[in-house]
């Protein structure tokens, strides 16, 4: 571009000379920020304010202290347990699967099929997933009847599908593909040269994993596991479609409070529970971000 052209361009970039340019340009951002203020910040403020107010609008801490009641603590513990177990199983299994895929042909069909399938299955949740498992290991499910006809009654000690074990199993179904997707880039980042270098220095597989690949993958692995934890902790739809009565986990308790008359007597309690959930997830996601930053430094 010629000097004159550049000058023309920069001149054209300023509709009106002087300080008024900046204030008018801001207008372009207004729709976005107004929208976000209304539908993202306002609900959060409502949560905050509502959890500190009682039925008549007076300030109170009773909603927050009600969270310490045994049955709610139990729900929190159940939520934590399901999230931790499904995150752990998902992380380990997903990492193994990611490794199996990464060591293959990067342009091959297998890799493309697995990543596409992982993308779909990580999406596959909620109502449809609950029904899939009812169709599989439900009381009239295919797998249940199949093994029962061969002498193994999966439900000899009660139908665990609608309790913690069942929900955890179902959660791993979308946790594993999620792990594959978020962990695969890290596994891809391992260069074959490192393996060769280890071997040329006399190290075996054990040394490779213990001193080279392991420490390098550890932050990403932990970070992804945390992401899985947050994911399971916040999940609602699957549990709602499966366990239609009761409040096994915190999201179900919140839904009950929103729709039952008990909730009307204590409108702040649902908000307080929601706030508590946000705090937990925020902490986990903050840790995740820190760990991902450490990983991405050497990945690129």
């Amino acid at each position, binding site marked *: 571009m010629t000097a004159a052209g550049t000058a023309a361009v920069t001149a054209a970039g300023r509709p009106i000379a002087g300080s008024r340019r900046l204030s008018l340009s801001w207008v*372009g951002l207004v729709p976005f920020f107004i*929208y976000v203020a209304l539908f*993202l910040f306002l609900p959060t403020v409502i949560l905050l304010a509502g959890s500190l107010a009682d039925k008549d609008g007076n300030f109170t801490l009773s909603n927050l202290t009600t969270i310490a009641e045994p049955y709610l603590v139990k729900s929190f513990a159940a939520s934590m347990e399901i999230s931790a177990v499904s995150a752990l199983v998902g992380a380990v299994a997903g990492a193994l699967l990611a490794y199996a895929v990464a060591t293959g042909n990067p342009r091959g069909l297998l890799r493309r099929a697995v990543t596409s399938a992982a993308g779909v*299955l990580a999406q596959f949740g*909620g109502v*449809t997933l609950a029904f899939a498992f009812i169709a599989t290991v439900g009381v009239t499910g295919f797998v249940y009847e199949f093994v029962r006809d061969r002498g193994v009654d999966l439900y000899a000690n009660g139908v665990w599908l609608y309790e913690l074990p069942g929900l955890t199993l179902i959660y791993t179904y979308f946790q594993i593909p999620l792990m594959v997707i*978020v962990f695969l880039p890290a596994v891809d980042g391992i260069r074959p040269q490192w393996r060769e270098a280890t071997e040329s220095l006399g190290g075996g597989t054990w040394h490779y994993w213990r001193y080279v690949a392991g420490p390098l993958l550890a932050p990403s692995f932990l970070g992804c596991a945390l992401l899985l934890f947050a994911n399971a902790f916040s999940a*609602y739809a699957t549990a709602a479609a499966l366990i239609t009565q009761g409040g096994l986990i915190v999201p179900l308790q919140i839904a009950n409070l929103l729709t039952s008359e008990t909730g009307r007597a204590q409108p702040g309690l649902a908000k307080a529970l929601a706030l508590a959930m946000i705090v937990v997830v925020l902490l986990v996601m903050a840790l995740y971000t820190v760990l991902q930053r450490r990983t991405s430094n050497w990945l690129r």
Partner: protein
Amino acid sequence: MFRVVVLVVMGGFFLVPIGAMFEFSTRGNSVTAPRNLDAWQNIVKTPDLTDAITASLELAAITTVAMLVLLLPTMVWVRLRFQGLSRVVEFVCLIPLTVPAIALVVGMVPIYRWLNINFSSSILTLSFAYLVLVLPYSYRALDAGLSAIDLKTLSEAARSLGAGWRTVMLRIVVPNMSTAILNASLLSVALVLGEFTFANLLAYENLQVAIAYVGLVDAGTSIAVAVASLLFAFILLMILSYFGRRQAPLAKAEEADFQLGQTIGLSGGLIGRGR
């Protein structure tokens, strides 16, 4: 050997429930009755379901268009004029990731009550909320696309040739970002079709809520719809993965893949969205 074992075990674990769904949805009325497609036919015969499917598709379309109209100009504007704000916009767009849907909806109930009375009670108002849910994923997808093109040069060149902003957006930016826009759109559609929490707790009957209701009445039909929606999502994402490799040069494609992988992964892990 290790790879084979892992792949076979995983493959089994993931394919069995899907197969079981197919099996369940084709069962006859009693244990001895022959297999039939009644459950599948019921999908079109149940007005609740067809209404809900239509509503969800409309919601998906409106949310996607609104997302593009709201987000793309804002992101372009920020890149060109307010680089300092890009961090802020990114942070704001990622907030919905950290707020579980079940928590956010509690705060939305009063807002929607107001909306229903003063504006409209149609299910399509859900798109206001869905736009917020879609923000993180669309932001990442569009950001990847914007990073891949030299926006400043292109826009300055166009404007120096006399183009107005509308021409710049429609004839310069959009065609160069078609992959990213397609990605963002498909992610948004997938999210809206799979969304349950908001619709359920705001008392609307979208596709997933309808499936849940039908499930209380007739398990076979609900599972048939579930399989159908799964197939639909699969086809969508196949299109996504096919187009995602086309345009950008190789090195940039990997960068975009990484970003997109994170995005899809996070979208798959839609923190409590459809889940």
